[in-house]
């Protein structure tokens, strides 16, 4: 029953990828920028959660919310300072800036607190194993999955039912037409960065709780993999990022389960290459045709 446990691990890992991938895909959808600093927002969230729990003595949920709020503000700040001035610049200029911002955040954190890793306290969430059909499943995995699902449901609600969500979809589709509706494009872009970054922050706290060890460069690999997940689902498409993340987590865990755990990290990039060759617009992407 090792296999089922691996499956559960895969889903937990996948839901973390999915939360990060959502930010990539939302930001790409609205400003057509691959925000390579997004993985570092995830790292910042993990640290905010860590300090909230250890120094401020918070329990899991307050720490989660604090990390989400801090990351949301941080995301807005990064957009306003680094990306907004480049809104009409070439894509490559924005991309290089994003890489610069990523390095700045990573080494900024190292500058202020050092490069040493930190360990989340083990008792943030109760650990027990639940017996389902004779298989022991850790309650933490289920908990993580539940939180991720709740966050994604909230996100879907925001995007489809609220005014700001409709504004986000309108700006993503046609920013100039959105302006003609009276939508403030700058504020809508800020809101998108805020929501995407808050989800990455939540992913950071969840990651710390589940995998214990956090360090300033921890965002690099999950960030890249979440990017792969976003491309897998179809960049710019929100349900695509959710499915892409879960799928990637599952694939990785299965690769480990079959004894190729050394290949775990490589697998994500094999997936990226395959997708780019065979299905460049992703699982959920369709080549839109527009009426003239």
């Amino acid at each position: 029953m090792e296999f089922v446990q691996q499956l559960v691990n895969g889903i937990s890992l996948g839901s973390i990828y999915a939360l990060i991938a959502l930010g990539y895909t939302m930001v790409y959808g609205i400003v057509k920028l691959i925000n390579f600093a997004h993985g570092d927002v995830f790292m910042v969230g993990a640290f905010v959660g860590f300090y909230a729990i250890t120094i401020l003595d918070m329990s899991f949920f307050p720490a989660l919310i604090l990390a989400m709020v801090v990351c949301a503000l941080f995301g807005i700040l990064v957009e306003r300072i680094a990306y907004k001035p480049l809104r009409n610049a070439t894509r490559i200029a924005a991309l290089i800036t994003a890489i610069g911002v990523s390095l700045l955040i990573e080494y900024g954190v190292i500058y202020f607190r050092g490069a040493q890793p930190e360990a989340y306290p083990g008792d943030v969430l109760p650990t027990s194993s639940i017996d389902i059909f004779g298989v022991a499943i850790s309650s933490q995995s289920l908990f993580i999955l539940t939180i991720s699902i709740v966050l994604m449901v909230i996100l879907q609600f925001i995007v489809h039912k609220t005014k700001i969500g409709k504004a986000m979809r309108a700006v993503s589709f046609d920013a100039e037409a959105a302006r003609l509706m009276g939508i403030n494009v700058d504020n809508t872009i800020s809101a998108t960065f805020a929501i995407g970054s808050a989800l990455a922050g939540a992913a950071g706290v969840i990651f710390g709780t589940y995998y214990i060890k956090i360090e300033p460069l921890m965002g690099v690999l999950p960030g890249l993999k979440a990017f792969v997940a976003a491309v897998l689902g179809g960049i710019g498409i929100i349900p695509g990022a959710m499915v892409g993340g879960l799928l990637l987590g599952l694939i990785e865990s299965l690769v480990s389960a079959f004894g190729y755990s050394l290949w775990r990290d490589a697998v994500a990039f094999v997936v990226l290459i395959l997708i780019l060759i065979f299905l460049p617009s992703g699982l959920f992407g369709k080549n839109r045709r527009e009426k003239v």
Partner: protein
Amino acid sequence: MLKVKNVNVFYGNIQAIRDVSLEVNEGEIVTLIGANGAGKSTLLKTVSGLLKPKQGQIVYEGKTINGKAAQTIVKQGISHVPEGRRIFANMSVEENLELGAFLRKDKAGIREDMEKVYELFPRLLERLKQQAGTLSGGEQQMLAMGRALMARPRLLLLDEPSMGLAPLLVKTIFRIIEEINKTGTTILLVEQNANLALSIAHRAYVVETGRIVLSGSAEELTASEQVKMAYLGGH
């Protein structure tokens, strides 16, 4: 109601509008006619705040609006139906209409205006939940106009509403434009189909390479040799 005074608009170094002045009075349908690339769309975009004029002034209901953000201008009562409709194809017809009322908070008034839009365009009511991108070209034009009306504008800017539509549908659309005008909405209409535009307009301006070269009442311009030669198929 709207006064454009000596406006110059540039795209980078290219000047698209040269020292244009025009006026739209309350209750009128005013049309801008001109060939491709004359600068008609540019002028509308400048009025609605998508573009900023380099020089000149635009005054709407006594207030200077040039340089203001597009959202401020919508709020002051100018709606712009852009060239090519630019509906949100990935959203439903209903959501498109809701977005038209984005700045409004008066729920009852919004409902009322929705009903009015359905009256003008019954086809939209039949297709409320349909994805806007799957509408026919004519229905998309209706949606674009309905969406603009949802802001309850006092001045409506229409950019080539007849583009790509079958003659019969064009007639319908123009009849509706007249209807909208009769209910008290002032209209600035850009058209390549000069015949049709002049048939419903009170006054007209002729634009050539960024300048206004002729203006007058619709009757005067319909009778003018110059306009006949260039825009009415020259008889």
